[in-house]
């Protein structure tokens, strides 16, 4: 087993463990904090995949903005900061069953795919992934249209969020 594989296994175990805590923690602030550690684990996974830009953006956008927003929302929507009562609904066993079935289904589906266990080619030494990504995002031959649509979506979401949460007297 190589060093990279060991690092991957540690990261994956850490991420999945934190993910389980997110969905099972009774205290919602704790769940949000566990989400942060899950997101961090995912960022490490991106770094292992040589996607530096995506890894750093993951930390900036997800941990710096989205997770903080979650913690704010948890604190804004409760009278008492301590949690009481069950945090899961009555049909939790059905949800668990469905989740396990989904995982089994995905795993068996992937097992049958020919490219399942392929290993990646070595990273080209003179290839600048960040420059290539930047060009792909703004080049008319590539993905400028989806990128612009995403920015319009973000703008619309921003306006909508402000309108929804605005406190009318």
């Amino acid at each position, binding site marked *: 087993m190589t060093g990279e594989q060991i690092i991957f296994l540690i990261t994956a175990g850490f*991420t999945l463990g934190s993910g389980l805590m997110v969905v099972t923690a009774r205290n919602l602030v704790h769940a949000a904090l566990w989400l942060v550690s899950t997101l961090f684990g995912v960022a490490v996974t991106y770094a*292992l*995949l040589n996607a530096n830009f995506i890894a750093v953006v993951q930390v900036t956008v997800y941990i710096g903005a989205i997770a903080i927003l979650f913690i704010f929302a948890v604190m804004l929507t409760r009278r008492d900061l301590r949690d009481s009562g069950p945090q899961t609904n009555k049909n939790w066993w059905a949800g668990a069953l469905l989740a396990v079935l989904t995982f089994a289904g995905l795993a068996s589906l992937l097992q049958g795919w020919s490219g399942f266990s392929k*290993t990646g080619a070595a990273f080209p030494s003179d290839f600048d992934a960040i420059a290539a990504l930047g060009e792909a995002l703004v080049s008319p031959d590539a993905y400028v249209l989806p990128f612009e649509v995403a920015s319009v979506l973000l703008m619309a979401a921003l306006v909508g969020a402000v309108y929804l949460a605005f406190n009318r007297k």
Partner: protein
Amino acid sequence: MVPLSWYLIFSAALFSIGLFGVLTRRNAIAILLGVELMLNAVNINLVAFWRYGDVTSMAGQVFAVIVFAVAAAEVAVGLALVISVYRRRNTVIADELDMMKW
């Protein structure tokens, strides 16, 4: 080198955990937390396919960036809705929000 299968299984597991959270949590914000886990699982797949396919074609990373934007939009609108509901009904438990049925 880690084979592609490890990443795919990892992301499938993360997706299932997120699905479990979405299906079982009572608190609306906790449901959104589960949705975030599912979006992250999708992103791991996108980036893994970029790395193990043709690295010079940036489609995987580009769509990962777009998923970031979609996730940010989803969280902004979702949490605004939750806060707005909390103002009217004083609760964020999804079972108790029954304004649409009678």
